């Protein structure tokens, strides 16, 4: 097996133990729910959008170490960014986790989010890492229906 340390990096464990921006947001302009059927992870994402800028972003819910850390680090990466910035980051993140193992992902552009590169060695856990990002997509579209990672 790939080294577990690639999966459970210290940065990830730190965000799991002390998730950032994990709270409700009463004045959110958009929310969305995400659900990972395989492990029961549930997340609610809150966005405060103003003229295309993510003024504030937070989440609540229950999940595994990977999904919690991913949500936490996503909120840190996106706070203050424009929606136009968020979209390519989502695509980069998604590509990093789903690209074949012999392809080098663009870790530099992902900055801190590159710590999740080890997740792609654990195919059943990829959905844990992408759940917050799929939920973000739903929140941006302000969908009412919960999204799943299916």
């Amino acid at each position, binding site marked *: *097996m790939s080294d*577990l340390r690639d999966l459970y990096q210290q940065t990830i464990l730190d965000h799991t133990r002390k998730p950032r921006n994990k709270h409700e947001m009463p004045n959110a302009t958009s929310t969305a729910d995400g659900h990972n059927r395989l*492990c*029961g992870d549930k997340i609610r994402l809150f966005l405060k959008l103003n003229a295309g800028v993510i003024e504030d972003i937070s989440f609540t819910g229950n999940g*595994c170490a990977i999904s*919690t850390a991913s949500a936490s680090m996503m909120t840190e990466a996106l706070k203050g960014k424009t929606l136009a910035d968020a979209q390519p980051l989502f695509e980069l993140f998604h590509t990093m986790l789903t690209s074949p193992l012999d392809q080098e992902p663009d870790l530099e552009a992902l900055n801190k989010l590159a710590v999740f590169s080890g997740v792609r060695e654990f195919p*059943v856990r990829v959905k844990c890492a992408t759940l917050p990002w799929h939920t973000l997509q739903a929140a941006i579209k302000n969908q009412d229906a919960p999204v799943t990672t299916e």
Partner: protein
Amino acid sequence: MTTTTTKPAVAKAAKAPAFDSAAIRSDFPLLQTQSHGKPLVYLDNAATSQKPQAVIAATARYYTNYNANIHRGVYKLSVDATAAYEAAREKVARFINAPSAREVVFVRGATEAVNLVAATWGMENIHSGDEIILSEMEHHSNIVPWQLLAHRTGAVIKVVSVSDGGELSLEHYAQLLSERTRLVALTHVSNALGTINPVERIVSMAKARGIPVLVDGAQSVPHLAIDVQKIGCDFFVFSGHKLYAPTGIGALWAKGALLEKMPPYQGGGDMISTVSFAGSTWNDIPHKFEAGTPHISGAIGLGVAIDYLGAIGMDAIAEYEHDLLLYATKQLMRISGLHIIGTAPEKAAVISFIMENIHPHDIGTIVDGEGVAIRTGHHCCQPLMDHYNIAATARASLAFYNNREDVDRLVAAVEKVKEVFS
């Protein structure tokens, strides 16, 4: 024909006074393999079991030596295949002490069996306002078919509550039994908690009011000697793949009088007596419920799995597994921060657990890295998870081929989980 010569390799050893788990283990090729470079420890038996070489060989022998369709040909191959298929039905009947093999319907598994009963007996006998009693610890496969039926008929589902220890509340059950109750459908053993339900008592309480009972035996058949007549139920369902047999085969047992009255489930070949465009008539039971070419090799494999278990003895298996359960429970409880979900006094060898501040999914990934396969998730029991206010558990489910070393490997792997998260 070679189907009757499939004696398990360990039959002799297993009949010796001591339970020869090492010999049994050697009968299962997959248990000799490695996972992530370590000898595999397979502890997900409640999801599916591994198959003994005798079962694997029997299915291969069918395809190699006498593959033909059944109930059709006049040629030897078809006669041989039919004989082996019907012999398997006889074995199933004896295994659960059914009065007659004609009351045994081969299906894909417990799920299909429940769906069959809901779609046939249920559609005929359950009407608007009627009540179906289930329990909070049911597998989704014994919930959703009844919800579909309730949706079609306007029936109402009532749910027996479960105590925090994981036992059914018989008091609540007694309260739910009413003039409108038309069916009680209940699991014999909980796949998520291991609880062995007092089915005989539950059935007799329903019978006192003339209410039919379906018992889901998916988790009990592999671990306990089953006697459907002693249980007293009307329907009993189980899957072969949890019983060391191939996937895609299982059985529905129902009282003959009920099967006779029930309409067919699916239409097609083999389930008919005559067909004309003016109308068709149905074959005798159980064939009335077996449309199309069935899973012949699966049924033969199931028969051989039953032979294999019979040579060891279900009582010996139950005793061995109970001892292993006590050992595993004791060892796991030593781990600080680990909590066992499901502590009923009567338990099959299933241990669901959670760990403080560590999600079951992470437990599963880390112990997998140690070569230990356990299940993590909601175990197709979301209402039960809601009862405990948890999203998921980690679950180790033991079989008679597991041993104390497997348990020790699990415990060491769980210690590793704590180390990663420390």
